[in-house]
């Protein structure tokens, strides 16, 4: 199946790409949005002093 990639998705903050699969007639059969980001805040906030967490989590998104 023909695949069109939109990579990266632009003019937004954050990372993403879209895979669009076309059928034999050239119409969209299916499309998939992939979010390729992972940093692990869920883990690395653990064990930090609670008063420090407001100084860490703003870096999840600074927009």
């Amino acid at each position: 199946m023909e695949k069109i990639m939109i990579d990266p998705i632009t003019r937004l903050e954050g990372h993403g790409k879209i895979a669009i699969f076309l059928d034999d007639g050239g119409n969209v059969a299916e499309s998939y949005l992939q979010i390729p980001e992972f940093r692990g805040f869920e883990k690395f906030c653990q064990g930090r002093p609670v008063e420090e967490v407001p100084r860490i989590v703003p870096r999840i998104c600074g927009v």
Partner: protein
Amino acid sequence: MSNNDKAKFAFYWASSCGGCEIAVVDIDAVILDVAALGDIVFWPCATDFKYKDVEGYDDGFIDITFFNGAIRNDHEEHVAKLLRQKSKVMIAFGACSGLGGIPGLGNFYTTEELFQQAFEHSPSTVNPDNVRPQPSYDVPEGTVTIPAILDSVRALDQVVQVEYYIPGCPPQPQWIAAAVTAYAEGKLPPPGAVIAGESTVCDECPREKSDEKSITEIKRIHLVENDPEKCLLEQGIMCCGPATRSGCEAACVVAGQACRGCFGPTDEVVDMGAKLVSSIASIAVPETQEEIDALMAQVDDPAGYFYRFSLPTSMLFRSIHDMTEGQ
């Protein structure tokens, strides 16, 4: 660069929060200087260029790439190498790119530990099959891919050569403007330079320092009323100012919070943790080694304070990493 051959600029974000992109916009009128100086040829956050456009550029086509974000996955590593090849000058922009930054805190854990918390144990996760991100995944129509997470977070210069660093989380407008102006006037410093202050945050801090031995115990900032006129560290509150490069005008301390070191170490500081331990010891009331060890034991998360923004580039991490690599 002739007059009709404008400079080419690129901006890129790897493992980042977007704050560095906002910092670029925050340079206000200087952004017009950037626009007058050159054309933007890649900036996913603001313009619609694709990776294949960059792949099509000649090597060295881009004059300066401002690269923010750490290297957390193999795609970011690939784009860092691609932009390096296409750029005359690479600037590590912001703490994530220059030092590893907040995403670098992931280096305290294995990838599996990070995944386990995010995709299995966190209270808001429902994932009975324990699905993990798959770099390649077959769907009925074909295959879709996402990047593979690397074993550890790296700063930009641990992946490619970097000419300059603009530190901060995020960088401050005056240093971005200083870099742009230096480029426009052909006065960029020698490669390797950090475009910020040369002394420490303490030197810029308006709080009064007595330099007397004053720390009797380590205190947590929210549990005490601190004297707003006096040095936080001398009051026993952890502050990374003595080890941290100047240039932010002690922004956090002025706002009533302690410095957490986002500008990274000064040229003289080999290891932020070692420098901070010696700074604390030098103004501690206890004098014997045992007493000082007992005082330091009151610091509840020393590695998290000392290397908040710089774990991947710290001596601590590099030595642990080298040890485990050698096994």
